[in-house]
């Protein structure tokens, strides 16, 4: 029995290896930090249209970036394309020299501020930072126009945030770029003094707001749409800060081609497909996100906003990048 099971394990791994080893250029391997529900349908469309097969490994963006880093450091990159939920994780790979240059024709699909400054990764959809609030507990008239108002006494003990989460940290990093480290540090300690509650991620905050555990929380806009789609009685609603407020920053998802891939053309073709009309409409209509390609519009429910000085943040120019952001967050007393 034992021998047979062992043999079958070997057979299975052998089969898998054979499947991966087919080097005919017809399969692109994607490491996707974006989950299956939010991307597989459009990847299937890509395969149908181009005849190029895709193999996808799903996982957290940070963990997959670490895996790509280790593969690349060992000179054995398995992934051709990395899709990241947050700019932070893909920028990390860029800084370590693990991403290849994207063709100019691909980069030109989006405005300058929605891609990496040295042209190695590109945004393909966007989520806006919003305040999600429980409509039974918050009077719409008292909703703030700026994220800075959340340190005022009237929000004492009512706010949830996710200090350890990628998109919160990306948002704080963006805020540092526009407001300066001192203002951000002061705001973060003000929030902590005001009794803000920590949650692991956006999802947990929207759930907590729905239960009335906190009155409101800082999240990406997308999650509340999902909660309403799951349960029409969910009392959470999104509130937008003023468009010029740092609290209204757009967090983009990023796509890049892994350095050293033997399928750079197919990889670039895939990224172009995500930025093409059908890809962008998929993100607008199916995942309630903001399309980023020039000329694409969000779906009906998603408010149209003007994106100002936002998009890909130049982490190099922010001393310490995300590491510095985490220090600011922990120094303010949060468990980042």
């Amino acid at each position, binding site marked *: 029995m034992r021998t047979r099971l062992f043999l079958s394990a070997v057979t299975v791994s052998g089969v898998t290896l054979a499947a991966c080893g087919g080097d005919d250029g017809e399969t692109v391997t994607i490491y996707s930090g974006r989950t299956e529900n939010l991307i597989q349908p459009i990847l299937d469309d890509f395969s149908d249209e181009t005849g190029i097969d895709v*193999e996808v490994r799903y996982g957290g963006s940070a963990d997959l970036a670490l895996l790509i880093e*280790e593969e690349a450091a060992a000179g054995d990159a398995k992934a051709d394309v990395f899709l990241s939920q947050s700019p*932070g994780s893909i920028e990390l790979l860029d800084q370590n020299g693990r991403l290849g240059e994207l063709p100019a024709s691909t980069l030109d699909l989006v405005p300058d501020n929605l891609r990496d400054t040295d042209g190695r990764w590109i945004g393909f959809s966007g989520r806006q930072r919003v305040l999600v609030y429980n409509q039974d507990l918050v009077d719409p008239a008292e909703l703030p126009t700026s994220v800075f108002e959340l340190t005022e006494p009237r929000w004492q003990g009512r706010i949830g945030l996710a200090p350890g989460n990628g998109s919160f940290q990306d948002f704080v990093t963006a805020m540092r770029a526009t407001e300066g480290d001192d203002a951000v540090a002061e705001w973060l300690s003000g929030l902590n003094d005001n009794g803000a509650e920590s949650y692991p991620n956006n*999802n947990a905050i929207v759930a907590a707001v729905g*239960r009335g555990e906190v009155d409101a929380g800082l999240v990406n806009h997308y999650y509340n749409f999902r909660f309403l789609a799951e349960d029409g009685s969910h009392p959470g609603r999104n509130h937008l800060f003023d468009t010029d407020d740092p609290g209204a920053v757009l967090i983009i998802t990023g796509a890049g081609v892994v350095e050293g891939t033997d399928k750079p053309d197919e990889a670039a073709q895939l990224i172009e497909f995500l930025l093409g009309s059908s890809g962008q409409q998929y993100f607008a209509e199916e995942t309630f996100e903001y399309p980023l390609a020039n000329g694409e519009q969000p779906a009906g429910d998603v408010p149209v906003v003007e994106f100002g000085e936002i998009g890909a943040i130049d982490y190099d120019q922010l001393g310490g990048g995300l590491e510095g952001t985490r220090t600011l967050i922990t120094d303010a007393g949060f468990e980042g």
Partner: protein
Amino acid sequence: MRRPGAPYRRTVLTRSSAASSSADRRHFDTVVRVTALVVGLTFTVPGWLVLWRALRSDRAIADLWSELVPPFWRTVQLATMVSVSAAVIGTGLAWLLVRTDLPGRRLWRLLLVLPLGLPSFVGAAAFIAGNAPGGVIYEVLDLIGVTPPRRLRGLGVSWIVLTAFTYPYVLLPVSARLLALRPSLDESARLLGRGPVATFVEVTLPQLRAAIIGGSLLVYLYCVSEFGAVQLLGYDTLTRVVFSTRQFDRATSFGAAAVLLVLAIGVVSLERWQRGDAAVDTRSARSTVPPTRLGWGAIPATLACVAVAVVGLVTPVSSLATWAQRGIADGRVDLGDLVEPAWNTAFVAALTAVAAVAVVVPVGIATTRLRSRIGDVAAGSVVVGFALPGLVIALALAIVTLNTPFLNPLYQSTALLVFAYVVHFGSQALASVEQSLRAVPERLRESSRLLDDRPVRRIVHVDLPLMRPGLLAGAGLVLLATVKELPATLLLAPTGFGTLATEVWSSYEDGFYAEAGAAALALIVVSGVLTWLLVLRRSALVADRPAG
């Protein structure tokens, strides 16, 4: 081969057969020692990598340590509290399920193991979802006139939730031990007028000590490496440091993991020392004692089982069912999509359970029979693998296979995935395997040695049947740990290989609650079916005594 009724009496041996038999035995012992050493060394691979990476840190150790001290103590506090409560609940339930005439005990034996099959992140999420109008916690508190708390967060709630998800780590090995325990001492105590409770405390408990401590150790290590649930419950432990620094300050991340490792080595050494050689009574193996009659006591006993099941199973399952039902009602959820992940889950979990038990048996023989120092070190190495978060083990094994030419083909193969599971969960089989080895009476082994000088044949025909309950309990624990494993599965499984746990995670992560709920319920069903088919049905835990 054991002959029923054969006298356990030393016979006079001719010199030649004694010599060849003792040479055989020495040979066998050497093979066991070497195998145990190799197994032990293999289990330490992730640990060495963590230490090596941590030592490359350019941060001053004092500086790093000061950041780690507060979460370190919080981790110790939570882990200690949960292990104590899990020990009490697990032992109490084991006694009720094995030694009494509790109504419906066969069903309880299955139900009360199932909380172990739920991934803690979704278990905790589903648990706290019960604290909203319409949820189990909210409505029950409301019914008894208590205002439901606004937030279920912090140490107290983490303690309750983790206890409810981990007590089976004590329940399973203690049940196995109770089944293998000689009942005559109990009978004598009862004849001398001791009540069932006094008999249990004074006579039975000392013999369960090693099983209880071994199970509690697993609970302790589980809490040490836990991340998803405590995060959601707002309780900050060392794993948070491991995770939050993993991208931009990797040395600190590995440093925090190294602290987990050192903590685990300390606790494991303490357990080995505390347990000592605990010469357990091994003169008989099958319980024939009639079960304790609970009488009216069956009511509080049943209520206790219900209470545990409500916290660990009913509350999370009812939230999951609410989520799933919304999706099934409007056709968003296609249960057919779960068939392949369910099959994958069952396949790797069964493979891992068998592999883990097989791999730790030599280690168990080395520690229990040979009393070998090498065996103790190997056992320690096996156990420590449970204290590292799965993500750390996965990254370590990725680094090792990617950078070792002859291991490279294993990277992201099923074989490496199962290996990672075995390293992570082998400890769960070890405690039970050691217990089961102790359950084979020394004198029976001596006489069998006289009747058959082939060690392997003796093991198959004499030892294995007696070890069965313990081996199955160990396999069961590994199985339930593997079905819900997430981080190693995401990083090391062959690309495109999805399990129910990855389905749950991927749907939950982006708020597809209906799909997450359906996949989590499927996970509980698969856990239940596998536990039944592979563990309970094959052990006396369900077959039950004819007298019962």
